[in-house]
């Protein structure tokens, strides 16, 4: 047995040894594939940034200019001067931040109840919760619209906030995380006479940063980026979110590409900056959502 091991270990590493051919690349051949691919992913966004600082004359020239002759902020000043763009930005921010905070609070509370507390019906409820995660939105959007209209929320930010207050996903993700924590710490606190809420806030939450940031990141991403529901629920342009505003703006100014691209940059930038600032959290969150769901 040991003989085989000794023989095959060098064989396993043989692939790394120099090939027969005299010529060798100074880097892995995979880069020849990966560099063009990476460029393919990056170039549209680079082009977005570049065109937002071009003049329309430069953009509309045929063939179009690929590099702006100078930094032209005309598009931005038009967009920011446009009465409603800042308002749309604020609307989006209000909706997304409310959704993040409330998903953190209700997701934590619900997840903890499902993970640690015993109550009649918990299994059935959990099952229902899981089942609703798989319900596609088009199935619920018409009745949700009717409910929101009945509540008088159509055309207000309330119609955008209420359905995103808590998702089954947030509850489930928090539950899974709490289940992975050791019980002993909480039990010690219970014995010391701490209330359930006290245990949750003082003992459990400080340990839950990874799960909380996953919920926060994914909630922000989905609410900030959503267009379907705002399109259905909002008609009046003062209540638009940024995504809804951007499409309307594009429809009205389809020749003013510099301004449209400037608006587009403003729409994308918050998420992009958040991503670049907390890349690890983003990627881990998405991976975790994939691996755990």
């Amino acid at each position, binding site marked *: 047995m040991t003989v085989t091991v000794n023989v095959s270990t060098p064989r396993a590493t043989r692939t790394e040894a120099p090939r027969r051919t005299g010529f060798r690349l100074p880097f892995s051949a995979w880069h020849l594939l990966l560099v063009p691919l990476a460029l393919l992913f990056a170039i549209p966004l680079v082009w977005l940034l570049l065109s937002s600082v071009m003049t329309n004359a430069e953009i509309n020239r045929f063939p179009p200019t690929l590099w702006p002759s100078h930094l032209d902020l005309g598009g931005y000043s038009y967009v920011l001067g446009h009465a409603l763009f800042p308002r749309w930005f604020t609307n989006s921010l209000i909706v997304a931040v409310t959704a993040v905070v409330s998903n953190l609070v209700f997701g934590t509370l619900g997840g903890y109840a499902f993970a640690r507390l015993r109550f009649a019906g918990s299994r059935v409820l959990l099952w229902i919760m899981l089942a609703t995660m798989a319900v596609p939105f088009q199935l619920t959007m018409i009745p949700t619209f009717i409910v929101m209209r009945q509540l008088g929320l159509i055309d207000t930010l309330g119609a955008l906030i209420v359905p995103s207050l808590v998702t089954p996903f947030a509850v489930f993700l928090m539950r899974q995380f709490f289940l992975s924590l050791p019980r002993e710490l909480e039990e010690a606190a219970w014995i010391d006479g701490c209330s359930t809420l006290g245990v949750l806030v003082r003992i459990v939450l400080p340990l839950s940063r990874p799960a909380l940031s996953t919920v926060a990141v994914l909630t922000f991403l989905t609410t900030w980026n959503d267009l379907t529901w705002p399109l259905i629920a909002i008609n009046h342009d003062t209540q638009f979110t940024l995504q809804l505003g951007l499409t309307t703006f594009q429809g009205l100014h389809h020749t003013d590409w510099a301004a449209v691209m400037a608006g587009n940059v403003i729409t994308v930038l918050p998420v992009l900056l958040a*991503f670049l600032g907390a890349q690890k959290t983003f990627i881990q969150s998405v991976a975790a959502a994939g691996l755990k769901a």
Partner: protein
Amino acid sequence: MSSRLPTPITITPNRKPRRAGPRREAATAWAFISPAVLIIIGLSVIPVVWSLLLSFQANDLVTPSRWVGLENYDALVQDPNFGQAVWNTVLYVPLSIVFGLALALVLNQRIRFVGLYRTLMFIPFVVSATAQGVLFSFILDPQFGVANSLLHRLGLSTQGFLTDPSQALLVLVGITLWSGTGFCVVVYLAALQEVPPSLVEAARLDGAGRWQVLRHVVLPTLRPITVFLLLWQAINALQVFDLVYVTTKGGPLGSTTVIVYFVWQQAFKTFTAGYGAAAAYVVAVALLVIAVLLRVTRRRRMEGATR
């Protein structure tokens, strides 16, 4: 009682310490979950049932609805637009999975700048479909777009892209691949980290080559993730709406009318909400069947495999 020796106060190990009686615990639990339950039942469970009822009605969202039985479903079967909408949606799913897996496998090797590549591929995923749509209708604009100008410079013929009925859907699939592949890559990369190295090592020692290790060790361990991604991408593909709304509005000539766009049009444009609900239901049931089938085949394979 008093004749017995005093026993030290301990907590019996098999009984978990509890703060209060079970009734108190249940009350706390309900207080904790009621907001979530209220929202989820009110805005998910009830609408699901409601949608089913709607699909048997003629409803214009304004006047009281009228019961029409299976008429909506009948009409749906004969509607060529619906058939097209379903077909338009199916194309994207396998492509994104295959691309994602291939790229993840490449990136999982010991090469330099893997982090940079991963970041670049993932960035489009955080960009909203709206922004993608606006950006690509600019890049692919038949007259002023940079894509056509590059083709022109290379001496190739210019394309209609989103304005050409025979290309539009493929272009949309391409855009979705651009933004969605990074997700598959990241999930697969995370899953690849969890492939036990001892397993790979063992296979190597048994004389398995690279390809055999991939086929018999790595891919089988990735199967649950692949199943998840298939479902996830299928659900996402069936939900594509924003991108279509922003770029083509279902056109040209209905070539990009995907399912949600169809439902949205029926409900909120032509005000035939019952018909829209029926369409949504057909798709949801199809999705459910896919999910169940995937689970069943997976379970069967797991049982069949010698572990």
